């Protein structure tokens, strides 16, 4: 391609008080090119994209747009230039309609009617059907993302930035989105595609810039590379693999969930509908599903943070625990790692040692009502060394840890108490590959020692790698379990959209034909 690049970055640098997020990054994207920005969490991808979109101001460096140097002042300026961005976390108002939400982001005034018409037109054109009059809260996560994409497309962008777009989609929906992106590229729109999923990048992208620790470590044509070679550029070493050793452990039934129903505390949440499953010692059960399908509610009910009406619907070691609070459930062998780390799994404003006491106080850290800080410090040291938590010492504030290190610390705190039953939510969300492997391996070790492990994750690949059995949650319904070796990504993907026996998608079908309600699963 001989014409001027659509976008060129020269020496982009952004320095935060504690870290250099971007260090002299150079990059170039041609019109119609799908360009991957590949890097681990915290490598500086998002900062770079925000600089292009005018959200953060770089400290040094040049942005050259269609051959002209520009200083992008703010997102509105970026949009005027023809840059659109779909953020990882949506910025939609749930009580407003699709049209109203899009109108909020339009820089020029348009009447609602004509806007709705244009939404229908554009969404039809790109094969992304969307009803402009629908309220956001009634839409699935995939459809919400579609709203964000349409919002960008309405501005007829010359460059579309997509930040980790597939983390909320089923494998089938990912296919569909790739088609749209290819079509856009064919029409001359350049696409910056941010991801850490190597297979996606190899399939979709024409070229790639790999970033590690704020610096460019390489440029590549993904189609010519292997997953291993890309990963090496991304993390700087070979990907460590989890030990595949899986002795068969025949444990007793440890967690039993029977007909668990619970309405959500959040008005836009998902109600749990007569969920039943069980986990036995020596196995890892995975719960797959797109986020927002009842995972939060299920975990709150299992941990005891929200009590359920029927105490018999949850049992640990055969004892009904539905009425017990988290502390009492921990006394019966539960360990729990929530997906929110700071503010739930750990207390901001406290040191690592003090954060140990939060759940590990039962390990002999309290005598006569007084705390034994020495014991807590020892526990923290062990946790730091066993789980290679990168920090100064146990006296450091917990907020000084990066997301991945905090996750290792919290997971370590729960695992070192040798729980009979460990429940982990999004174990490697936002965690770099090295840390992710340590966390996965520790869960496998716990399983091999005879504990029961329940993992809730949106990363299907991760579940397929570490779990023995899988169940799928969709709109508050849970599928029957399936052995990981007897299923495929495609089947689970279908289930994730609710198409399993007794699931929500088949349920509507049953209702329509006046069938009796499905019994159990």
């Amino acid at each position, binding site marked *: 391609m001989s014409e001027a690049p659509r976008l060129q970055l020269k020496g982009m640098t952004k320095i935060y008080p504690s870290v250099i997020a971007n260090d002299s990054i150079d990059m170039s994207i041609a019109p119609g090119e799908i360009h991957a920005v590949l890097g681990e969490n915290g490598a500086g991808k998002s900062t770079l994209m925000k600089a292009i979109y005018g959200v953060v101001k770089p400290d*040094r460096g*040049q942005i050259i747009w269609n051959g002209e140097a520009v200083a992008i002042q703010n997102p509105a300026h970026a949009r005027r230039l023809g840059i659109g961005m779909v953020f990882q976390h949506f910025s939609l108002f749930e009580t407003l309609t699709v049209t109203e939400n899009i109108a909020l982001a339009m820089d020029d005034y348009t009447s609602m009617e004509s806007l709705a018409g244009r939404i229908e037109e554009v969404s039809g054109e790109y094969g992304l059907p969307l009803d402009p009059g629908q309220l956001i809260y009634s839409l699935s996560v995939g459809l919400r993302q579609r709203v964000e994409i349409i919002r960008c497309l309405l501005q007829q962008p010359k460059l579309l930035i997509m930040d980790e777009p597939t983390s909320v989609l089923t494998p089938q929906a990912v296919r569909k989105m790739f088609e749209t992106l290819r079509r856009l590229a064919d029409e001359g729109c350049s696409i910056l595609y941010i991801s850490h999923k190597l297979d996606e990048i190899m399939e979709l992208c024409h070229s790639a810039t790999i970033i590690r620790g704020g610096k460019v470590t390489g440029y590549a044509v993904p189609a010519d590379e292997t997953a291993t070679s890309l990963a090496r550029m991304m993390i700087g070493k070979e990907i460590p693999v989890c030990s595949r050793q899986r002795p068969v452990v025949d444990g007793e039934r440890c967690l039993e969930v029977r007909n668990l129903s619970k309405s959500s505390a959040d008005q836009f949440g998902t109600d749990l509908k007569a969920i039943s499953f069980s986990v036995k010692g020596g196995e890892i059960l995975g719960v797959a599903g797109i986020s927002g399908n009842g995972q939060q509610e299920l975990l709150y009910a299992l941990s005891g943070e929200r009590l359920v009406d029927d105490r018999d619907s949850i049992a640990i070691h055969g004892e009904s625990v539905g009425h017990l609070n*988290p*502390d009492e459930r921990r006394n019966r062998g539960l360990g729990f790692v929530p997906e*929110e780390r700071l503010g739930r*799994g750990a207390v901001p404003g406290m040191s690592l040692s003090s954060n140990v006491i939060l759940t590990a106080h039962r390990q002999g850290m309290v005598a006569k*009502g007084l705390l034994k800080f020495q014991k807590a410090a020892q526990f923290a040291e062990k946790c730091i060394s066993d789980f290679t938590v990168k920090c100064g010492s146990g006296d450091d*504030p917990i907020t000084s840890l990066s997301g991945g290190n905090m996750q290792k610390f919290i997971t370590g705190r729960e695992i070192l108490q040798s729980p009979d039953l460990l429940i982990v939510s999004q174990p490697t969300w936002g965690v770099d590959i090295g840390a992710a492997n340590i966390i996965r391996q520790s869960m496998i070790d716990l399983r091999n020692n005879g504990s029961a492990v329940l993992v809730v994750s949106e990363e299907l690949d991760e579940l397929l790698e570490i779990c023995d059995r899988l169940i799928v949650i969709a709109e508050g319904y849970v599928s029957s379990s399936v052995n990981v070796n007897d299923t495929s990504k495609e089947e689970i993907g279908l289930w994730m959209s609710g198409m399993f026996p007794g699931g929500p998608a088949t349920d509507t079908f049953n209702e329509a034909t006046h069938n009796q309600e499905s019994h159990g699963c």
Partner: protein
Amino acid sequence: MVVKIEPRPEPSKVMQYLSPLIAAVLMLISGLIIFSLLGKNPAEAFHAFFVEPVNDLYGIGELLIKASPLMLIGTGLAVGFRASIWNIGAEGQLAVGAIFGGYFAIIFNDSNGLFILPLMIAVGAVGGMLWASIPALLKTVFNANEILVTLMLNYVAVLLLALLVHGPLRDPNGYGFPQSVLFGDAAILPVLVEGTRLHLGVFLAFGGVIAGWVFLQKSFTGYQMRVAGLAQKAATYAGFKYKKLIWIGLLTGGLTAGIAGVLEIAGPIGQLLPSVSPGYGYAAIIVAFVGRLHPGGIFLSSLLMALLYLGGESGQMNLDLPSAVTGIFQGLLLFYLLAADFLIHYRMRLNRSRLEVN
């Protein structure tokens, strides 16, 4: 170059300790400006306000007398504040403590038993806790906002005290003045140092501060309160019983305020009056915050606040300053503290960065 305000990567330890000092200095400067505007010589005013009240033994005694209820209540409130339970009702709890303690002093007026003082203190504590249990009950059962309930109950309690002193508890031989009989010797706290009014109650206050320190810094329940204050979701995640913490937080404030009420009537006052506190219950809130909710800090800040009370009195007598001057200083102190606390989480930098654009 512009001054740029940016969040600190982590809260500044130094600023946490420096902020109360900055607030005190700014309060002082503002106070002196106000004095000058009122036509007083600032140096003279400073001397009258901050030196004269404490330049003799009697003055030191007065300082400790005033500081005792402040440090006691401040510590009690800090227990709740640590868990984000905002008890604004110490003034009312103090009044009810005084009513309970005073009632027993009056009915045992003829007796000389050694039991009277301990009994007064005990029932005073119970009275304060009973008054604090109203917001605790309403919060745990109906989720009623404890700030509003405790605040409004202050007016109820203070008026209740006035009602009783004007009515049933009035001295029958007191020529109709709204005051109770003078307490007997057995109901008066013994003076510790000859030539001052410093009484035994100061040890009770010290004891309260030490007990508060052990509870807040060393106990498991104190830890739970801190967790609940910093991150309520984490407290739920750990399974700490939040309702229990609400009760503890509010009752500790009531307990200390009730005892402080008894210390006032069994100390310098010696009888029940329509008003037994110059706003100690409110001032203790400022004491708790200036003291960083830490008993050690509360001890120091209670001395500062007591000095403001004494300085205000001295300023009225020597310089014809209005009585509102104490309140002004207290307000300035809290105002500057809240402002200076901003610098714990944020810092100011001169913005030097510029964009290289050709």
